[in-house]
């Protein structure tokens, strides 16, 4: 099963990169769901995470920086039978493409967004990102970052996200389970992934995360209350992983009446009659 989702290209991630664990979790999730390669579309950002485009064997759309979510939405609206995922980083989704983060989440488009959050712009050699803590010294902030970091899960929870989760690149099995749940969820699934960057974010190593993460499911957490989820999302000393909040709601494509009769791509265009439309111009 494993090879089905693997291309002949050898991964170019740095040794120890969190992307290895995330990629493994993705492939394992696809295998667990028994999804054929050709039924999956992954839209990729520009960044280290997005270089996965060359290594994962499914239909792929390797687009522009900060823009991986709109094409995934476009694919889903054109053919809602497909499983659509978008990969993006903290810089791409909470910075360059933050308008898509705020807008498309509200539409509850049925896509699963995996955010590789390493608190750095790593491909461009380690500048601060929207999730970098205040005071952090980076190459673009030699005197320390002045901005406060964004709290993506907290924002999502007050922004009508219907599936908000956090995973850890160092716990592949747990992350695989989250991705499976995200894909199964019919609506916008945000999976924030804590990802160590061994080159540009040495303060937050695997060990740093392991000392702080704990699993929500081990605490009998129900994931059905936005307020409770918000409290968990704002926790500073410890970092919860698991599903923070989940809600059943119609996905965007289910509310578009022209899609009631099946995917757009299956609607015939070989013979189109506009006779009725012309009447009103007479």
């Amino acid at each position, binding site marked *: 099963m494993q090879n089905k989702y693997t291309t002949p290209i050898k991964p170019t991630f740095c040794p120890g990169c969190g992307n290895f664990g995330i990629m493994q979790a993705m492939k394992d999730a696809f295998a667990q769901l028994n999804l054929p390669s050709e039924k999956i579309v992954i839209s990729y950002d520009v960044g280290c995470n997005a270089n996965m485009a060359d290594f994962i064997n499914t239909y792929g759309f390797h687009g522009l920086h900060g823009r991986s979510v*709109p094409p995934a939405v476009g694919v889903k609206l054109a053919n809602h039978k497909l499983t659509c995922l978008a990969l993006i980083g903290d810089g791409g989704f909470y910075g360059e493409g933050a*308008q898509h983060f705020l807008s498309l989440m509200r539409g509850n488009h049925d896509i699963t967004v995996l955010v590789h959050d390493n608190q750095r712009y790593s491909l461009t050699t380690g500048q601060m990102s929207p999730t970098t803590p205040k005071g952090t010294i980076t190459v673009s902030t030699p005197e320390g970052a002045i901005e406060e970091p964004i709290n993506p899960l907290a924002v999502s929870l007050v922004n009508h996200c219907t599936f908000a989760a956090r995973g850890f690149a160092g716990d592949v099995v747990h992350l695989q389970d989250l991705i499976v749940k995200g894909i199964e969820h019919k609506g916008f699934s945000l999976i924030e992934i804590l990802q160590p960057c061994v080159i540009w974010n040495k303060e937050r190593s695997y060990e740093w995360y392991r000392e702080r993460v704990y699993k929500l499911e081990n605490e009998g957490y129900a994931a059905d209350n936005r307020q409770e989820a918000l409290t968990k999302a704002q926790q500073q000393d410890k970092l919860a992983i698991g599903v923070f909040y989940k809600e059943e709601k119609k996905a965007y494509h289910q509310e578009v009446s022209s899609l009631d009769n099946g995917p757009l*791509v299956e609607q015939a265009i070989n013979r189109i009659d506009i006779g009725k*439309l012309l009447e009103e111009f007479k």
Partner: protein
Amino acid sequence: MKNTINIKIAGSAGEGIKSVGLMLSKSFLKASYFTFDYMEYPSLIRGGHNTYQANISLSPIWSQAKKIDILICLNKQGLKLHKDELKKDSLVIFDPETVLVEAEKPLEEKKPANNGLNLTIPLKKIATDAGGLPIMANLAGLGAVMFLTGMDIKYLFLVIEQNFSKKGQEMVEQNQKVAAFGFEFAERKYSEYKVDLQEASNKQEKILLTGNEAISLGAIAGGMKFYSAYPMTPATSILHYLASKAKEQGLVVKHAEDEISVINMALGASFAGVRVMTATSGGGFALMSEALGMAGIMELPIVIVEGMRSGPSSGMPTWHDQGDLNFVLYASQGEFPRMIISPGDVEENFYLTKQAFYFAEKYQLPVIILTDKYMAESLTTIKLPESVSENEKRSFSHEPVSPFERYKDSENGISLRTIPGQDKGVYLSNSYEHDLFGFATEEIEMRNLMVEKRLRKFETLKKEVCQIKQHVLGDPDAEIGIVSWGSNKGPIVEALKILEGKGTKASCLNLNVIWPFPEKQVVDYLSGKKFVIDIECNSTAQLAGLIRQHTGIEIKERLLKYDGRPFYPEEIVTKLAELN
């Protein structure tokens, strides 16, 4: 006997000038006349001066004209602002109660003023006397116009029915009554001013529509299934029209959060196999520029309508300009094939939009339809187009072999594509330079191969485009030649008619495909001319620059306009007379 009549309605924004103007025009359409309707308005919701001008004719008519035969003035500014457009015998209709004239000397009813004859009609009083609301005064005015142009009121009644039937029969009858009272008032008081307009005889089925409506219909006919957009004048009405028909026509119409999302979403849908379009103006197109290049390297079809307006920057949002030619030609980093179409009239808007989908899908590239405010919003009467369109899907692989070579090299530069969901067709659509499978590459050989493949595709497109004959307007053998593009076609056609009447022969090559640049056709046209002038609505003669760049021919004579208004045929005639 007159065979054309030019009517202008002037009033303040929010007074319903546009809807009353359209009703006027439609009444003449129902009586088998042709009309060309042109509107001016500021970028405001209320206040400011609005006009609607209907140039009505027995035969097809393609532009507005300067001199007005009948002016209906609903505010006092109108009397001042349009003074220069009046002739001695123009009729000026206004309600003395609302239009308090602040002229130096009081206007004398019925007696010729310096400009036009003033016909005071108590429009509001007529509306209330007929049992209607004061807001229906406009219809009393239309009723009066029906009488003054010798039209049967039944045509206006038909239009009222079409317009108000949704609001109930009572509403229809009330409006008809107000119109009838207006008609009768004019008949009683101003019967000697009745214009002798020849009866229309061309009974061929016609429609009256804007450039944007024609683009929308062309897109639906061309198999467009996905439309995403962000509102921006003058492209917004395409979004409104398509959204209103989405359910009935089986379209997905998405108003997205910004133009960046718009084009990225559309390209996602295109990748998934449906025909996609978006429309915007220069500002929105600027935001789309990065993804335009992505369509180029991913080799994905998309049709983008760029409706130009006066720039730079926010400029004059509701006014006309052709300043974006160079912008759409060169937008986005790097080099990639694109196609630029610039329809010259409403008919071309329909047919060329339909064709744009063919070109985009066959050659897997962005096709830009470059239009403008004048074209987008003006209405023209055209003969009813064919209602049925046949569309064939192009450049798809039906039996892919895995691993699929999406960007396989080919003689014509076109590589077949698969769509997600298709077995054995899995590939990566890549904004990075890529190999045959779509995987990123920086190798010299593959880079060169891909650049050259894309260029070759453009050469194939160019060959096909050059086979489409560009129409020469007017007398092709005339020594005087005009080169122009896009919506200038209308005023030029009307100017050629006037010149012909004066015994001056001239012709025009109005380009409706600008890129790939039709060098041979331009050279062939120019080589036979003794005298050539370039006509454009911009200040730097961008088309003339392109012609010089690609043919070496410099066109020194130019008629350029950049004040936000389209050309009037009279201006073109005057310029040519000066030079002749």
